[in-house]
């Protein structure tokens, strides 16, 4: 009886639901280090508290992927994000540099990622 009544209720009355929407943004990170060639890989130091790819409203954090050949992609919920990290950059000759991304490191500087596909260009600075 319960199932029959519920099925009737759902079939008769469920015509008012919205179609699904695209909630995600596919972010392409393009990274450069001024004065240097493109590194083979850049790995963010996730152990630091200041490392973040953080939604400023929900404060949800995303892991920053390994950036290979100067570019990487990740999927996030559409929103406004703070991006900051210290990372180790490895070059083709095996040399390493400690680099920092600080362009979007506060809510006031946060980047808007509200389209289905977004590109963010990060200019890293070299740490001494």
């Amino acid at each position, binding site marked *: *009886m*319960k199932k029959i*009544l*519920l099925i*009737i*209720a*759902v079939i*008769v*009355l*469920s015509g*008012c*639901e*919205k179609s699904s*929407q695209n*909630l995600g943004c596919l972010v392409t990170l393009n990274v450069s280090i001024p004065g240097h060639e493109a590194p083979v890989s850049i790995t963010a130091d996730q152990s630091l508290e200041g490392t973040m790819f953080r939604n*400023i*409203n*929900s*404060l*949800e954090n995303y892991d920053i992927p390994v950036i290979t050949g100067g570019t990487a992609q990740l999927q996030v*919920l*559409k*929103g*406004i994000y703070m991006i900051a990290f210290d990372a180790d950059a490895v070059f083709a000759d095996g040399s390493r540099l400690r680099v920092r991304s600080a362009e979007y490191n506060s*809510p*006031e*500087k*946060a980047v*808007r990622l*509200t389209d289905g596909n977004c590109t963010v260009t990060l200019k890293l600075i070299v740490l001494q």
Partner: protein
Amino acid sequence: MKRVIISLLALGFAACAYCQDSLQLQIFNRLQPIMARTFTPSYTDVALLHTPWLQSTTVEAKYDWRNENQAEIQELGNGLSQGRFLANSLKHLGQGRAVEGSVSYLRGVKKNVYMNTSSDWELLQPYVIADTVGGNLQTEQYTFAGRYAGRIGSWEYGFYGSYRALHEYRQTDPRPRNISSDLGVRASAGRSLGSHSISVSVAYRRYHQLQAVSFMNPRGANTSEFHLTGLGTHYARLAGSGSFTNLRFRGKGFSVAALFLPKAASGFSAGVQYDWFKSTRHLPNQNEVPYSELLTQTASAFAAYRKVLDKFSYGAVLSLEYELREGSEAILPSIISSGVEDIPYLTLYRSKLPQARLEGVLQLRAGKAVWSLEPMVAAYSSEARRLDSGKKAKTDDVSYGLTAGWTAMLGKATTQLKFYAGKRAISLSALAHFPAGRMSAFIRPSAGYHTWGSGLHGWTGNIGAGIEF
């Protein structure tokens, strides 16, 4: 109308022999379960023309009490102690016109309200603010409502207006002070077709709640206020005890309905209604920026049949309802107060609640008494989901019960006893009407027990006393 009166007179055949008081006769007729059971929800106002009672004014004082060992719904608290004053008056003015008015005042305490600081939680959930301390909440509410219906030839029309004002507060930290107002108007039109009436209605609703939560303890706030977004999520950026503890809800909605109604006491009735209500949450001290929207759509329908006979009467109602709630959350900009316009929203919360209910009434008149049985079976299935994280909560249940009743005229007094036993609940209620001059004085106590899990239970009770004339 004549048919209705004839049917009622037939119903009250036994009473007539013993009672000369038409008021007591009307009360006795009205209390009979086949008539008291709501076979026709108030979807339109022309139904007022078809009420069998020509005139009735009731003034009542009431006390309600509830105590649960653990809150069944923690947002509403685990206890209640409230007093109410209610007055209602209905009068058929003749020449196919009828008018009804009602007022009420409520004052009480909701006990141990937890994880909810806003008022009107049922309307606004899950987009309310909440804290982990909670406490007793003082509540005070006024309502006013008026209805008028008339007839021009075979056409029928009606108007309805209502207003509700609610004030809730707490005098220990955290201290919410919530003021709600809820205004509704409705217009109805219909046509009398043979033995039935067909009518439609259009309604409009405006809702507003201003909420401020303060902390007075000089040692600082004892909790944070969380701006909930459903299933344990919240706007983490707005959590705290400072800048974002003032908010405003603005709501508006409309309803359309159609009703098919028999003019006589017996017959088939049916109706459908669709409600649309959208509420937005604002931050008053941040340039009134809106940061969440809740759209609630409800479709409901019923079909009923009632057969009123001299000795044995019966009826049944099948009710269906489907509620869909969709919550959208703003992508607030870096500087919140700058983002009043062009804020993108994401629909991130959705809940569905289909419900079905089948009720029946069987009644047998024996001498001066009416014996009745009212079986009921109901089912619901609720599913809430966060669309970003995939979090989901799902519950369903089927409940059933049977009410046995006895309604009788003892001398010139009318009495009624009802006992309900069902899945996880029992209750007992009584009513006694005593003639007092041209009026009738009444008292109606009731008590109930319910459980919703192992070791979880609650008691409810209320007592009302008043006069009718």
